[in-house]
C-alpha cells in the first residue's frame, strides 16, 4: 500500500542521515562510471575522444544537481515541513470557524473531564504521602478468629501498644493514636473541636516537623503533665488569626487550662473519620492533639480502641515483624488471661491503603467513566474531521494530481487534527483546574482531604499526552481517507457522491459513539437505582422531619452524674413543649453516624462464671444511654416488651433484635423479656431485659452495625448526648428554637452542630451521591455528543442523496416511506451501538458490584430505562433530517443534480 511505502520512506531516511555522505560518494562514483561508459559509446560510434567526453557530460546533465538532490533526499527536513503544515492548518481552521469551534469544544470537553478526574486520582491514589518513607508505615490491627463474624478486625488496646513499643522487633518505631473531642471555651466562642490523643513520638514518627514550637516529650504522657496541646494550621488561622504569640499561651479545654506548645504544618495529613479503623472513629476534622495517657488497665478492660502505627526498620522484613508482633501479643494474652483459649493474629495494613482503600474503586470507576466520555468525544471528532475531508475531496485530488505525496496529505490532515487537539487540550486543562476545585469542594471527605486545587505536573503531562493521542487517533483515519482520493474519479464527481461520501465510516463512528454513550448511561442508571434504594432503605429509625443536635456538658457544674441527668431531662421536656414538636429524647450516639463516645462491650449471660472461657463466644454490643423520649422521637420499632421509661427502679435495658438472636438463638423475641444479661464482667450487676427493639443501621448502609443495648440515661450517664426531635413540619425551622432553649438553660454550653436527620444520612452517603451525579453528568454529555453526531451524519447523508431521493419520489415512492427509509437508516448504527453498549455496561457493572446496592448488574429497570432514553434521543436527532428528506421537491432535486 502506498501509505505504507511512504512511511517506509520516512523511516528509511532516519538511519540514512548518518550514511548520507557515503551515499553521495557512491552516487558520485556511479556518475563517473556512467560518463565513462557513455564516452566509450560515442568513441565507438566514431567521435573524437575529447568531443565524446564533452557530449557524454552534456547528456548526463547537471551532476552537481543530482548529488545535491541525493543529499537532500537523505535529510530529514521534517521540521520545516511540520512548520509549514501547522501554518496551513491554522489558516484553514480560521477560515472555518464553525467547524473549528465545534471540534475544539469537543476536545476540550473530553480532555477537561478526564484531566479533572485524573488530577484527583493522582492526589489520592498515586501521589506520595507527605511522610518520611511512607512505604514503611503500617497500621497494625488484631484479628480474633472467633470474633471474625462480628468484628473482622480490632484495633489494639493500650496494653498491646505498650508491649509492642517496649519489645524489640523489626519495627523501628511505634506510635499510637486515639480519637478525642473537646470543648474549647475562654475568650472566644465556645466550640467543640475534633482531635486525637497521640503518643509523644507521633510527629517525629511521621517525619513531620512542626511549623512552630515543639512536639511532645515522652514525660508528657504521664498523668498530670499532659495538659499540653498542639493545634493544626487551619484551626490556628481560623480561630486565632494566625497569631504567632499563641505558642506558650494557655487555652481553656473542657474547663481546664492547657498550654499550646506547637502548631502543626499546613500540609499535615492524618486519618479522620473511620479511615483508620471502624472502631477508632475520629471526628471529621482533627485540629488538636494531646499526649496519650498510656495507663495500663488490663486486657480485661475492653478498650480495644487505640490505633497503632508501626514503621519498618530499614533492614526489617514485614512478615518477620508481623510475626514478632503476633508473638508478643499472644504472650501478653496468655499471661494476663491464661484461660482464654485463642490465638490472635496481627494484620498489617500499609498506610496508603488506609487513605485510598475505600475510595479506590470509586475513583477508578469515575476515571473509567471520564475515559468513556473522552472516547465518545474522539469518535465525534473523527466524524467531524471525516466530514471535512469529504468536503475537501476535490482539493485533495488536485493536490495528488499535482504530485503531492500521499504522505504529505496525511501529514497535512494530521497537522490539522493536532492543532485542534492542542488548542482543545489547553482549554480542557483550564476547565480541569476549575473542575478540580468544584469536585474537591462538593466531593466526599476523603477526596477533599487529599486534593489540592492546583493542577500539578503529572496531571499536565497526562493532559498533553491525552491531547496528542486524541489528535492522532482521530486524525489518522480521515487522513488516510484523504490520501486515497483517486485523481480521476474525485475530479469527475466533484467531490460528492457515494464514493467520496465516507458514509459507512461515519455511520460506524456514530455507532461507536452510541455504544460509549450507552455504556455510560447504563452505568449511571445502575448507580442511580442503587442510590434511590439506599435513600429509601429502612434503617430502623425515622429520617424525615427529625432534627438532631449534639449537646455536651462539661465543667464543674455537671461533674456529678445526677446533675447531668437532671439537665438532660429538663432539656428534653423544654423542647417537647416547643410548638411543632411531636416527640423529643436523647441518645448517647446516633446510630446513623460512628461516634467517639459510644462504648462497645461484651454481653454475658448470668450463667457465665469464668470470663475468659466464655468471652469469645459472647456477642459484642454498643451501649447507648437514652432518655425515654428517644424511642418515640426516632420511631424505633418495638418487637417485644416495652420501651424504657423515666425513673426505672433496677438495672434494665432494651436490647436490639440482633442481640436477642445472638444471645438466645432460635427463640422468639418475646421470650427475651425478663431475661438477664451482664455487661463486660462476670461480676457486674445483672441487667433485666424489658424490651426488644428493631435494629438500627448506619447511615451509609455499608456494613451491618453491632447490636445495641439501650440503657436508661440515669444508669449509663455520658457527657455527650444527641438530642433527637421529631417535628410535625419542617425540622430545620426548629433549629433556632432549640438553640435558644439550650442557651436559656446554660449560656456557657457550646453551640454544637444541629442538623436534620436527612442531612446527616445524606452526608453518610455523600460518596455514593457524588459518584452517581458525576457519572450522570458524563453520561448526559456523551449522549449529547452522540445525538449531535447522529444528526450531522444523517443530515449530510440526506444532502448527498438529494438527487437519489428526488428520483425515488418522482418514480412514485410515498413520502412516509421516504421518511421511514431515512429514519431507519439513521437508527441502524444506534441500535448496533446500543446492543454493544449494553453488553459493555453489564461487563463493567459486574466489576463494580461492590458499588451497587440491592441492584443486579443486569437490572432491567435501569438498563431498560436508559435504553429508552438513548433511543428517544437518537430518534429526536434523526427526525428533522428525515422529515426534510420526506419534503424534498423531486423537480428541484433532479434539476440541481
Amino acid at each position, binding site marked *: 500500500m502506498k501509505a505504507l511505502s511512504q512511511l*517506509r*520512506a520516512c523511516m528509511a531516511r532516519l538511519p540514512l542521515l548518518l550514511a548520507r555522505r557515503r551515499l553521495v560518494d557512491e552516487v558520485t562514483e*556511479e556518475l563517473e562510471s556512467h560518463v*565513462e561508459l557513455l564516452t566509450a559509446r560515442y568513441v565507438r560510434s566514431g567521435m573524437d575522444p575529447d568531443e565524446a567526453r564533452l557530449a557524454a557530460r552534456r*547528456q548526463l546533465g547537471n551532476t552537481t544537481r543530482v548529488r545535491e538532490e541525493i543529499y537532500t*533526499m537523505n535529510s530529514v527536513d521534517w521540521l520545516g515541513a511540520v512548520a509549514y503544515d501547522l501554518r496551513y492548518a491554522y489558516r484553514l481552521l480560521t477560515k472555518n470557524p464553525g467547524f473549528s469551534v465545534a471540534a475544539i469544544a469537543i476536545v476540550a470537553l473530553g480532555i477537561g473531564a478526564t484531566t479533572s478526574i485524573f488530577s484527583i486520582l493522582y492526589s489520592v491514589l498515586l501521589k506520595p504521602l507527605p511522610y518520611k518513607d511512607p512505604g514503611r508505615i503500617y497500621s497494625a490491627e488484631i484479628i480474633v478468629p472467633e470474633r471474625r463474624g462480628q468484628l473482622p478486625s480490632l484495633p489494639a488496646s493500650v496494653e498491646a501498644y505498650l508491649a509492642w513499643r517496649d519489645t524489640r522487633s523489626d519495627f523501628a518505631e511505634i506510635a499510637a493514636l486515639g480519637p478525642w473531642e473537646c470543648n474549647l471555651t475562654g475568650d472566644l466562642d465556645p466550640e467543640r473541636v475534633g482531635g486525637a490523643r497521640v503518643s509523644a513520638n507521633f510527629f517525629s514518627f511521621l517525619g513531620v516537623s512542626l511549623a512552630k514550637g515543639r512536639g511532645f516529650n515522652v514525660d508528657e504522657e504521664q498523668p498530670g503533665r499532659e495538659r499540653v496541646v498542639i493545634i493544626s494550621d487551619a484551626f490556628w488561622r481560623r480561630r486565632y488569626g494566625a497569631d504567632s504569640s499563641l505558642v506558650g499561651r494557655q487555652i481553656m479545654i473542657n474547663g481546664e487550662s492547657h498550654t499550646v506548645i506547637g502548631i502543626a504544618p499546613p500540609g499535615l495529613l492524618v486519618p479522620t473519620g473511620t479511615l483508620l479503623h471502624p472502631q477508632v472513629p475520629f471526628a471529621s476534622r482533627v485540629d488538636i492533639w494531646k499526649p496519650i495517657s498510656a495507663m495500663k488497665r488490663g486486657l480485661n478492660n475492653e478498650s480495644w480502641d487505640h490505633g497503632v502505627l508501626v514503621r519498618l526498620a530499614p533492614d526489617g522484613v514485614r512478615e518477620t515483624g508481623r510475626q514478632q508482633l503476633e508473638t508478643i501479643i499472644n504472650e501478653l494474652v496468655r499471661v494476663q488471661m491464661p484461660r482464654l483459649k485463642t490465638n490472635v493474629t496481627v494484620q498489617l495494613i500499609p498506610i496508603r491503603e488506609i487513605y485510598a482503600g475505600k475510595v479506590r474503586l470509586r475513583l477508578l470507576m469515575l476515571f473509567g467513566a471520564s475515559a468513556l466520555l473522552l472516547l465518545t468525544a474522539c469518535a465525534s471528532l473523527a466524524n467531524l474531521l471525516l466530514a471535512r475531508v469529504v468536503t475537501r475531496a476535490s482539493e485533495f485530488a488536485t493536490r495528488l494530481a499535482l*504530485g503531492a505525496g500521499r504522505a504529505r496529505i496525511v501529514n497535512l490532515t494530521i497537522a490539522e487534527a493536532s492543532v485542534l487537539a492542542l488548542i482543545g487540550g489547553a482549554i480542557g486543562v483550564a476547565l480541569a483546574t476549575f473542575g478540580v476545585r468544584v469536585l474537591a469542594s462538593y466531593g466526599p471527605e476523603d477526596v477533599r482531604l487529599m486534593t489540592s486545587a492546583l493542577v500539578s505536573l503529572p496531571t499536565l503531562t497526562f493532559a498533553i499526552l491525552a491531547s496528542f493521542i486524541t489528535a492522532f487517533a482521530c486524525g489518522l483515519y480521515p487522513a488516510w481517507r484523504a490520501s486515497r482520493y483517486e485523481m*480521476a474519479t474525485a475530479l469527475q464527481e466533484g467531490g460528492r457522491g457515494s464514493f467520496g461520501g465516507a458514509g459507512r465510516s461515519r455511520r460506524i463512528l456514530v455507532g461507536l459513539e452510541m455504544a460509549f454513550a450507552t455504556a455510560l448511561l447504563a452505568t449511571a442508571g445502575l448507580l442511580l437505582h442503587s442510590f434511590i434504594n439506599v435513600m429509601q432503605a429502612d434503617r430502623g429509625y425515622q429520617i424525615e422531619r427529625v432534627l438532631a443536635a449534639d449537646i455536651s456538658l462539661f465543667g464543674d457544674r455537671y461533674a456529678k452524674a445526677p446533675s447531668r441527668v437532671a439537665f438532660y431531662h429538663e432539656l428534653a421536656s423544654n423542647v417537647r413543649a416547643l410548638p411543632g414538636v411531636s416527640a423529643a429524647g436523647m441518645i448517647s450516639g446516633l446510630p446513623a453516624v460512628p461516634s467517639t463516645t459510644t462504648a462497645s462491650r461484651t454481653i454475658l449471660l448470668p450463667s457465665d462464671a469464668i470470663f475468659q472461657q466464655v468471652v469469645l463466644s459472647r456477642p459484642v454490643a454498643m451501649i447507648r444511654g437514652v432518655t425515654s423520649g428517644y424511642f418515640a422521637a426516632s420511631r424505633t420499632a418495638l418487637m417485644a416488651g416495652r420501651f424504657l421509661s423515666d425513673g426505672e427502679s433496677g438495672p434494665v435495658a432494651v436490647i436490639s433484635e440482633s442481640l436477642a438472636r445472638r444471645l438466645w438463638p432460635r427463640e422468639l423475641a418475646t421470650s427475651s423479656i425478663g431475661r438477664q444479661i451482664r455487661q463486660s464482667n462476670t461480676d457486674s450487676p445483672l441487667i433485666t431485659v424489658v424490651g426488644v427493639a428493631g435494629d438500627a443501621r448506619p447511615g451509609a448502609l455499608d456494613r451491618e452495625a453491632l447490636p445495641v443495648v439501650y440503657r436508661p440515661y440515669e444508669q449509663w450517664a455520658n457527657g455527650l448526648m444527641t438530642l433527637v426531635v421529631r417535628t410535625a413540619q419542617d425540622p430545620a425551622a426548629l433549629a433556632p428554637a432549640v438553640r435558644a432553649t439550650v442557651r436559656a438553660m446554660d449560656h456557657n454550653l457550646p453551640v454544637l452542630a444541629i442538623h436534620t436527620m436527612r442531612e446527616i444520612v445524606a452526608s453518610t452517603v455523600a460518596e455514593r451521591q457524588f459518584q452517581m451525579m458525576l457519572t450522570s453528568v458524563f453520561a448526559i454529555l456523551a449522549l449529547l455528543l452522540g445525538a449531535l453526531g447522529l444528526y450531522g451524519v444523517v443530515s449530510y447523508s440526506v444532502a448527498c442523496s438529494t438527487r437519489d431521493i428526488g428520483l425515488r419520489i418522482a418514480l412514485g415512492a410515498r413520502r412516509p416511506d421516504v421518511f421511514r427509509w431515512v429514519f431507519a437508516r439513521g437508527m441502524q448504527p444506534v441500535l448496533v451501538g446500543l446492543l454493544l453498549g449494553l453488553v459493555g455496561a453489564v461487563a463493567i457493572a459486574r466489576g463494580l458490584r461492590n458499588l451497587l446496592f440491592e441492584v443486579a448488574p443486569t437490572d432491567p429497570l435501569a438498563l431498560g430505562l436508559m435504553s429508552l432514553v438513548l433511543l428517544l434521543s437518537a430518534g429526536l436527532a434523526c427526525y428533522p433530517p428525515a422529515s426534510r428528506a420526506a419534503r424534498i421537491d423531486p423537480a428541484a432535486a433532479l434539476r440541481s443534480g
Partner: protein
Amino acid sequence: MTFQGSLGYFYAMANGTQPGRIDVLQGTLDLMVLTTLESMGPLHGYGIARRIEQISEATLWLNEGTVYTSLMRLQQRGWISATWGTSENNRKAKYYSITRSGRRQLKAETKKWERIAGVITRLLSTVQQS
C-alpha cells in the same frame, strides 16, 4: 495508441521542461525505471538509462543523471534494492533489482496509466471525428 506510444507522447511534451510538470515527470521516470527492471532483470544505472532511451523512442534525452535521483527515491520506498557488482568497464557498480512491493506498485500504476490512456484516446478520437 500503444502504451509505449502514449508514454512517448507525454515524454515529448516533457521535453519542454515546464516547472509545473516536474512532479508528473518524476512519477513517470520512476515508472519507467520500474518497468525496465521488471522486464530486463537487474541493471546498473547506465544500463537503465540506455533501455529507457530505447523504449521512449526519444532521440535525445537531456539530464540522464536524473535516473539516479529516481533510483534513490525508489530505494527509499522499498520498491527496488541494490547490490554491488562489477560493470562492463571493470568498475564497481551498483546493480538494482525490483522488489516484490515494487512489482505490486508497478501493477497498480500500469492499471492507472492504461485508464488515463484510454480516456485520452477517446478524447482524441472524438476530436478527429468532428
